[in-house]
């Protein structure tokens, strides 16, 4: 028996409970898939489900990683990792990342998506959001810039 367990483990690549857990996981997903297979929009749901992961891994990540790389090259290694004082790179990165995150999260309002449902639900339009996002982003860059200046000034004094 012990021999059999060991052989299973070698062939499968993990102990038996690993398989049990994964079977449980796929059973739930399979049940949901069967339950939804009859829906007219099942294909779209699947597309958005898989698409969300693909969009993150093969679009969003490469985009922000290469933007960061370009930013680092533009800033220069000396100001990205100064021997003393604040890093200019980080003072650009943080507000840029925050602005991009806000854009992604509040994208429907900023880009005025779903106007009709928005109007029916709220009785309003989505007019102010783009300007607000730009203002918040500008404020973030400004705050980061001021902080950078202060930190540099302090680093020079000491």
């Amino acid at each position, binding site marked *: 028996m012990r021999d059999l367990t060991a052989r299973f483990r070698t062939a499968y690549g993990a102990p038996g409970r690993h398989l049990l857990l994964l079977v449980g996981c796929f059973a739930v*997903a399979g049940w949901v898939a069967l339950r939804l297979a009859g829906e007219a929009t099942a294909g779209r749901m699947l597309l958005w489900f898989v698409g969300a992961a693909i969009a993150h891994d093969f679009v969003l990540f490469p985009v922000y990683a290469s933007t960061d790389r370009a930013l*680092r090259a533009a800033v220069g290694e000396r100001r990205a990792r100064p021997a003393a004082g604040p890093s200019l790179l980080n003072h650009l990165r943080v507000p840029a990342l925050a602005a991009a995150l806000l854009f992604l999260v509040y994208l429907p309002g900023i880009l005025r998506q779903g106007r009709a449902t928005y109007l029916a639900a709220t009785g309003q339009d989505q007019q102010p959001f783009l300007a607000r996002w730009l203002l918040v982003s500008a404020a973030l860059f400004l705050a980061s810039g001021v902080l950078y200046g202060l930190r540099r000034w302090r680093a020079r004094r000491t």
Partner: protein
Amino acid sequence: MTTDRTSPAGDRPGPPPRTEPPRRPAYGFPRRGWAVLAEHPPPGARGIGERWRSPLRGPWLTAVHGLALLVGLPLVFLTGLLDYLAYSPQFGQAFPHDVGWLRLPPFDWPTRPSWLFRVTQGLHVALGITLIPVVLGKLWSVIPKLFDWPPARSVAQLLERLSLVLLVGGILFEITTGLLNIQYAYLFGFDFYTAHYFGAWVFVAALVTHVALKLRRMLTALRSRPLRAEVTVPRDATRPEPPDPDGLVTARPGPGTVSRRGALALVGGLSLLLAGLTVGQNLDGRWRRTALLLPRGRQPGTGPTGFPVNRTAAAAGVGAADTGAGWRLTLRADGRQASLDRAALLALPQHTARLPIACVEGWSTLQTWTGVRLRDLAALVGAGQPGSAHVRSLEKAGLFAQATLQANQVLDPDSLLALRVNGVDLTPDHGYPARVIVPALPGVHCTKWVAEIEFRGRPDA
């Protein structure tokens, strides 16, 4: 947090290459198959492991993110399931209708405390949004694994990686559909409730599996670097973690530009930023405006009725002709019937209650409502102890043109057919001539423009 593939400092001598990394697990069955796969990487896959440069990636950073999600995500899931129950699925009015055994044990949604739904749903939405940076940070910390070749060395690993598609796809699907729903942009073209509900179960099944498989590793990683010590380490003293069996630590770390505490502060700061721009949709007065980028950060007007609605009279197709002098409220119970106009309703004993109206989209507002108690209306047609009440709106179409209330929701002393709010008559958008308001009931079930209430007996009576 560098993701450089070819660091600008590439010409500078980096840290010396590390000694032998920990052994990868051996191939499972069929050994030849996995070995052949390993020898035939797709174009571009070879050498990708050499390109990851950030010295921050490693089990500890991943584990800290994992811990935050392990605390937060179950709360988001649980509040989501509670909100499903708040819609009284026993009357077939929770969406999706048929969820099989994928639900909490049913119970009658209580009316007390009156802020119950406000808190559960507010938490569901606000916490869900707050965790987005943590999810993205966690994905950043493990992304090199995605490009590993071979993708698996055994059936076990293959299955586990497939379950990660459900895990990652699941959380991103839930975040995306949720964000689009609270901003009224139904770009996806499928039923939100069905997708969000079942998507959550697929995600949670994958999460339970993932946690069961990785919990011990997470705890080991957390113990390897006490947080209190780690937050004292500045950028220049930040070194990569020792090589790990999962290969999260890069083989060729470049010079770091951020300390671990800096990375955590960044993720935490972004979470706080999102939280700060979200909680306002649950506050009244000037603080509501702090939800700068959300629909419910805006007050639709000023004065006693200048608070948000979730459906306008125009959208509901309810016009002045329907709500004018000819309007009557019909009450029914067991064959008995009564018809009252607004003056007759105002002549009945009036009760005032300060109650929140809270929406599934995670916004809420607290207002002072005045009207006739629902239980008084029930007594009027001789239904002293109703089992439920079916409320119909003047609204013809629409998912929420009608709602059934549980017995406790009819009998609560603060459950009203409201005629006035904050001392003035309801406006058309707030449900004039009369609307239901019940403590802790989801906003869409507080039917507006009420035309008829039918009190039904208890099923066992």
